[in-house]
């Protein structure tokens, strides 16, 4: 696989992560599904994974950038597993509305496993690391994708401030702390 093709795959991955985060944010705004503390940490993990892809797009493909992506996805997987285990006991209920029969934290775990697998597969192409590192500026579409993820990160930051104020979020939030 050529380096140009791998760059496009990285861009596609970054856009997919943006889509996941936008979907969660739309669910929060449109359906009033307030995110729990673990949901917020999973969103942060997705942004951490997206940063690895953004680093590849901005500075050329390096193994350390893929490591960044995989570590971010591992955080998501860990937090999602914790949340699944909290609700797996019969009678403990669930958090939020299900989507296609599964709750968001279960989807989150599935997507994080896909990101880790994708990272491992992309790392298997040795030739992408051989030769000169790209010193070219990233394409405009890559800059736009990075800008979109930055915007999503800012929106999540503002939403978390409105939800939890300056401290830790309540375990089962029912309203935005800083909104009337």
């Amino acid at each position: 696989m050529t380096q140009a093709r791998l760059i496009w795959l990285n861009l596609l991955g970054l856009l997919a992560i943006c889509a996941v985060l936008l979907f969660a944010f739309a669910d929060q705004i449109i359906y009033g599904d307030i995110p729990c503390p673990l949901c917020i940490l999973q969103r942060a993990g997705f942004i951490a994974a997206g940063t690895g892809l953004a680093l590849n797009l901005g500075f050329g493909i390096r193994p350390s950038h893929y490591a960044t992506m995989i570590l971010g996805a591992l955080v998501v997987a860990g937090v999602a597993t914790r949340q699944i285990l909290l609700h797996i006991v019969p009678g403990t209920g669930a958090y939020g509305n299900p989507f296609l029969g599964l709750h968001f934290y279960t989807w989150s775990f599935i997507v994080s496993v896909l990101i880790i697998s994708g990272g491992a597969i992309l790392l298997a192409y040795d030739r992408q690391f051989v030769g000169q590192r790209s010193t070219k500026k990233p394409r405009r579409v890559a800059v736009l994708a990075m800008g979109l993820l930055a915007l999503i990160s800012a929106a999540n930051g503002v939403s978390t401030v409105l939800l939890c104020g300056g401290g830790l979020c309540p375990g089962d939030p029912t309203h935005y702390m800083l909104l009337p």
Partner: protein
Amino acid sequence: MMSAPFFFYLLGFVSILRGNRLAALCLWWLASLFVLALFAVHASSVLHITL
């Protein structure tokens, strides 16, 4: 406090767009360690309630 990682990641993206890889990586580590600390605090509080 829980919003802090998002703003660190945001600064990381700004660093990437400005071409500063080292700053972007440092901010990424800072934000990720923050996320792990918050997760540890949450897990320990739930554990405390359960016990």
